[in-house]
């Protein structure tokens, strides 16, 4: 089933793509990038929109597993303006 989170995660990036991340005290290794896409922010819906520094959101849907755990599908989101990573969804 799908579960939706908004938890901040720490992500290790190598070669321009996520290689691993830490979430709720566990380390996950990325085995495969399943999908990658970006979207722009809906800047016009913001209270004080800043269309000069619009930034983008980058999504990585990856197959990853914690040490010794079962592999699952995780969706990681990167916000370019804040340089913050979020675990946005997971399927297990």
């Amino acid at each position, binding site marked *: 089933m799908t579960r939706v989170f908004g938890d901040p995660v720490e992500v290790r990036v190598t070669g321009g793509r996520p290689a691993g991340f830490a979430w709720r005290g566990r380390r996950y290794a990325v085995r495969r990038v399943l999908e990658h896409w*970006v979207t*722009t922010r809906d800047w016009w819906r913001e209270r*004080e929109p800043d*269309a000069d*520094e619009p930034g983008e959101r980058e999504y990585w849907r990856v197959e990853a597993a914690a040490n010794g755990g079962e592999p699952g599908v995780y969706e990681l989101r990167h916000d370019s303006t804040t340089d913050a990573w979020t675990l946005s969804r997971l399927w297990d």
Partner: protein
Amino acid sequence: MHLHVASAYSMRFGAASPKALADRAAEFGMRTLALTDRDGLYGAVRHVRACAEAGIAPVLGADLALLPADQARPGGPGLERVVVLAEGKAGWTSLCRLVTAAHAAGERGQARITRAMVAEHSAGLVVLLGPSSDFGRAVTERERGRAVALLDAWRATGAEVAVEIVNHHGRGDGPRAARMLALAREAGVPAVLGNGVRYLEGADHPVAQVLDVARKLVPLHRRHLDDQTGHAYLKSEEEMRRSAALACGLDEADDLVAATKRLAERCVLDPGRDLGMGRAHLPDTGPEPHGQLLARCLQGLRGRGLERREGYEARLAHELDIIGRKGFASYFLTVADAAALIRDLGIRCAIRGSGAGSLVNFLLGIGDLDPLRHDLVMERFLADSRPGLPDIDLDVESARRLEAYEALFHRFGTDATACVSMMETYRARSAIRDVGGAMGLPPQEIDAIAKAFPHIRARQIRAALTDLPELRRSNLNNAQLNVIFRIAERLDGLPRHIALHPCGVILSNPTLRDRTPVEQSTAGFPMSQFDKDDVETMGLLKLDVIGVRMQSSMAHTVAEIERTTGERLDLAAVPRADEPTFEMIRSARTLGCFQIESPGQRELVAKLLPRTVDDLVVDISLFRPGPVGSDMVNPFLDARHGRRPAVFPHPDLEPVLRESQGIVVWHEQVLRVLDVMTGCGLSDAEGMRRRMSSDEGLQAVGTWFRERAHARGYDGPTVERVWRTLAAFGAFGFCKAHAASFALPTYQSAWLKRHHTAAFFAGVLSHDPGMYPKRVILDDARHFGVPILPLDVNHSQALWRVEDGGIRVALAEVRGISEVEVERIAGRRPYASLGDFWRRAHASRPTVERLVLAGAFDALYRDTPVGRRDLLCRVGALDRASSVRPSAGLVAGQLPLGDDLATPEPGMLEDVPLGELPPMAPSEIVEAELDILGMDVSRHVISFYGDLLRALGVVPARDLPDRGKGEEVLVAGVKVATQTPAVRSGQRVIFATLDDATGPVDLTFFESVQDRCAATVFGSWLLLARGRVHKPGFRAASLTASECWDLGVLDEAWREGGIGAVRRIMAASGPSSGGRPIGRRTTYSSGFAVSPYADVGHAGPQVRRGPPARLWHASQGSSGPTDP
């Protein structure tokens, strides 16, 4: 290496200029760059120029939409598109013809292609099938069979085909790219990389998103955006490789990059060889064009009786020499042919601009101005040092301009002719409208915000908010609007839509369609997608056929003179030294005259006191920013009136500068001064003059001039003095040939005003050639003693006409009336009654109602109790009757014509009693006239404020010259013009003209008072102003204003609280904050400073359009102001 790039010339789609794109590509170290704008080649020539400047090689193509195979897919993902690139000269020809065919196939403004059309023009074309192509869509939808079939179908067109791999990093982009590549590999079709570029860098994507929704006329929402990811920017090779690698793997990415570069190199176009730039493509004028030209010039010499006159043959030989060296004989023959064609239609036609300086033009009959008599030089027009084709401009009657176009198309052939286009670009108001719409603001609010701004550039929006007092006082400074303004500024200068250039016509040979894509203009003319600069770069002959309203106006005047008196007037033969005409000009009663009706010009003629046409040439030339900026006007006037002797910088220059009292006024004089002091010859002098328009050029020419002049023995101080004058003159000077060609219609219009006054006003009112609203001209007619005859269904014609020494209001003035209605009304007269008119003229109900309210039926019901209100009711009844029983009473001849006014009209279902409604008050009549005709015909609107103005001691315009210089007075009137021209100080000075029924009053508002005055000046229609009398000339007087008020507001206060209330409002206007400078001035090397707000249309609605809404706030039970 980019093969798929849209610039801003993809209208409402691309956001970067060709130049910015080429520069960025060069920075990235790319060797080539393609421009493939949507639906056309609008930016192609600019791209080629930009690439040349950036040192890279241009590739050209177009992004074209496919004609939908089945229309039944509403809400689909939008049109399918392919990119078509041109390879070599054959490819360029095919591309031009394909784009032209695409525009001919779709509705206007909607270019569509089919595979059959590509097949028809396949030579040298490369078709790129990307994600938006039919093939790409089939791959997206995983319809493999259809995808393969489409690929085959494209290959069958005969054009080369390649698959374009794009990864914008949207959801599904990567896998789709991989599938497209796999299919291409399977089918053996080459694959290349593309990025569908729309803007320069990622941060520009909000602009593209706003353009997406502005194009679709929807508010911003993710589902309306073509750009979801912000990745449609000009990526570097490395970024392109990385995007490709993410989708297709590293090895494939390297392959794709290499294939892309190979195709790009192959498609590089050579501007000369492939595009035909750098050569002239003239119409075929038969064998031996130079011999023909010589023969026709000699014939002209004989025809004009100049055969053995001194100087003419030598000058002719000199000009023919240059023309021969340049190979332009066909050009002159063609233009002569065109001018003759226009004149043969009986259309008034005059040469303007530098072309008037050429004897050849005069002898060929292109122009009627003898350059030797006016001392004009040829080199300003055509010289060995001037690159490109010369420019000949013809002024024709504005009302018959399109007729002239049609004749030219007919004569030179539709294949060899096209109009020139121009790009309308985003400016402040249009940018605010589109961005405001995208952000979902209500339309009325957007309209109010946009109109609050003067007609400035979009990038000046936020600066204007702080600079301009009329905006500082508005409530436009808030956070939400700020976002709109910021994005609106980023739209600055982007093309919005293509329009017909107001005058340019290309005359060429049947290869024209191989050189330029053509689409249809709104008016139905074939129009090149190139603008005037592009056309010149492409070596095409562009003839400017300029519609001049004054020419139409004079033609109407001449026709009216003939109709009323039988006299056939030849304007060209009118004596040029008519004293009464000059006396009228000297007294500045020149409203409606060509070139000399503006407040500044009326002031100048009153000071200069012209006595000859040559004086008018000087007058027109002096009234330019240059002479004003370098303070030439006063020394000139002093010398002219003998207050001080003319000073010549050196005796050698006296012959050159004698006519202008020692000052430099004309380009021609710059040429001669340079020639006299350096001995460089006129041709090189013209080259130097043109270099002086840039700051670097000016420096270089200065160094050269000093060296050469010193070497020829001129002393240091003299050389410096002369150079200072020349430098100050800079780029602002005026071409004397141009002034001379303007002076003639100036004189002719003044002569007509003086001697055929009523016919003159009929012409001016019909064709509206000037800067003032028609009501000003109408008032001027009253001052000249011309009676104004009211609108009358039995007498008014389409245009104004002379009747018993007066002028009759034209039917065309009625708001909303159609040409067909005018024709029927005039053709079916006379009318015996309103009912008769209703049955036979078949005008729409709103038109009939407006005719009634404007008094067009008054004459029919004179001496009866029937008033306009009664007639208005009756229009309603007639309308209801004809809609209920369409056949009732409509058979002509069967019915009495309703002469018996007491009985109802036949066919009417209800009885409308007549003569019971109160007549309209004079104020209501004037209000109706202003609303319907846009002018106060029955009486001047200011007359309703007489009591208030007398109570305040307001000085009428007529009496202003009697007041002492510097005296403080009040004036009032209807605002008829506002201007913010460039002035010497670089201030934004507001000049406003009021009209108070006794004449115009000119007001000057300096920056120091604009804090409290600007908003009122721009926002009000009726004004009261306080100021000091300024006396610039011998008879003229104007006002340096310090305060002003909306007269309507004061009038209301007066009605409610008497004169005390009025004085309280006037006292409350408060002291000015002392005036901060408005905007940052640009200072030229001459010391001449220009305000960024000089010569921009002002804030608020157009002055010419008349009163904003209701004039009088009618309180209950009141019928407006009482009679004075």
